[in-house]
């Protein structure tokens, strides 16, 4: 699943439109939108890092997120001299108030450059050679508790700089800037999706696991052994149908014994 977080409705609107998201009315603390196939959702966090952190937490509790999910904070930001309308991924987030830092791990070929960002408590026109925003640190420090650093990112579109200060930014101009970068968002998601699939393959249980739990009783420690033995079976005896060897057993313990014996008796070849 893909979870997108925007501070403002005008930042969110082009994304909502493009991915055809509809509001989930049952959630009233933050506005949450979701695609029909439930693969993409978006929460409007409101302004500020506390709102961003609360929204991530609420979103997680409301939609049951997984460790392999993608988390994206998308919004506008200021910078000293990057042109208005350009996009940047964030490679370092510094919270101005606490000086705490986080480093999103960009392990894919990004469609735009990456840069450091400072999360401020108040808007500022005192531009630096880093992006300014007001949400990223709150978003990131909560999302990193729920996902993995390789799949949690902030994408910022430059809305103001030393030549064109915040006073020139309005909802319409933000919508236009965001709409131009829907393609950038899609590119990033296309790069991240294979990573989520890889994590899913790492954390998923062997294919027979659920069936075995339904058929026999296993204690908690036996479940760990079962998972490991099924994995070993699939690697060492991939062409030997497993169920026929254990079907007659009446207890989980005896099933584990049979699996262990058969695996130990099999020849081990490490390469094809």
């Amino acid at each position, binding site marked *: 699943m893909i979870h997108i977080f925007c501070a403002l409705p005008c930042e969110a609107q082009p994304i909502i439109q493009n991915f055809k998201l509809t509001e989930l009315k049952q959630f009233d603390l933050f506005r949450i939108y979701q695609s029909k196939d439930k693969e993409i959702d978006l929460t409007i966090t409101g302004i500020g890092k506390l709102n961003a952190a609360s929204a991530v937490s609420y979103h997680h509790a409301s939609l049951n997120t997984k460790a392999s999910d993608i988390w994206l904070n998308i919004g506008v930001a200021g910078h000293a001299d990057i042109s208005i309308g350009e996009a940047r991924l964030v*490679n*370092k987030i510094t919270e101005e108030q606490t000086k705490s830092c986080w480093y999103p791990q960009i*392990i894919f070929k990004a469609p735009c*450059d990456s840069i450091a960002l400072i999360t401020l408590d108040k808007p500022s026109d005192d531009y630096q050679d880093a992006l300014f925003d007001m949400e990223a640190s709150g978003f990131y420090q909560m999302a990193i508790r729920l996902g*993995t*650093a390789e799949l949690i990112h902030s994408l910022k579109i430059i809305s103001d700089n030393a030549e064109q200060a915040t006073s020139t930014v309005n909802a319409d101009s933000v919508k236009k800037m965001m709409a131009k970068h829907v393609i950038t968002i899609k590119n990033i998601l296309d790069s991240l999706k294979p990573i989520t699939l890889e994590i899913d393959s*790492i954390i998923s249980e062997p294919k027979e696991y659920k069936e075995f739990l339904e058929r026999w009783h296993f204690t908690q420690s036996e479940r760990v052994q079962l998972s*490991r033995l099924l*994995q070993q079976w699939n690697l060492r005896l991939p062409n030997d149908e497993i169920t026929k060897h254990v079907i007659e057993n009446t207890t989980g313990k005896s099933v584990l014994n049979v699996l262990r014996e058969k695996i130990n008796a099999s020849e081990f070849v490490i390469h094809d």
Partner: protein
Amino acid sequence: MISTIYIEEEIASHPRTLAILERFPETTKIMCERYGEIFNRKSQNFRLQKKQPALILARKHKSLVLPTPIQYGIGAEHNYYFSHMLNCLYDCRYCFLQGMFQSAHYILFVNYEDFIEDMNSTLNKHNNEPVHFFSGYDCDSLALDPVTDFTNEFLPFFERNPQALLELRTKSTQIRSLLKREPIKNCVIAFSFTPDKIAQALEHKAPDVNKRLQAILDLQEAGWQVGLRFDPLIYTKGFANEYSELFDRIFTKINPELTHSVSLGTFRLPKDYFRKLEKLYPDEKLFASPLTEENNSISYPVEIRDDMLGFCKDIITKHIPSEKFFPCY
């Protein structure tokens, strides 16, 4: 190859940092206070990071030179190891680094001068007795040598101190800087080997056996001493044939006079590391090997261990004198 470099503020203006950064003008550079802000933080995935590791330039503050575990050694009483780098360019599935670290990024400690000072103090502690220093426990000693300039910086210390010996443990063919220098007697370039098919299955991104063997021949031709490390020995049905073919290939080609030492040991990992690796690579056949748990360590059952070690020892000791053979059980 390297798309991101993190730089600790403290060593940002260190000459070695500047020299390395000059080699990567297009790379994204990110400043940090300490490498621990990035390396080994929770919620990172070693397997994913291995796809695109960053380089972290840092300063090593303490524990620069450490005693080796008791059973390690190639003939000296005093044995130490040091790691100017953490993590490796290669992706060997049996490697303990995958279990030890959360991050796959390469850390390079640029303060070589502090390592050398620590080595000097260690030497002084042992008066004039031989002391062996091992590099390549937590990284491959040579794989990034063209970037790190490691050998050019450390070898002069050993030239000046003949009672010290340096082992460079490697699978790399990056030997150009060694070939440009006059060989010294107290440096051993120790190459790790597994048979071809096992190497293809487990030693991802590492040079193949033939290339490593050619590197050995080139080094010996130039007068350098080499070591052979058959550690870990990997069990598979028909291991005897595979290993005897490997031994034949190596020992019929190398110069025994310039072969400093041969060591071997079977695959083993601390239990915690093994469990982590098993989760990280659930489809990896190595972790479905016949293995047993003993004293918080995962290794082959004793009968497989004895069988493999006995078989290999018999062949190896036909090719080299027993004083050059160092089993590491």
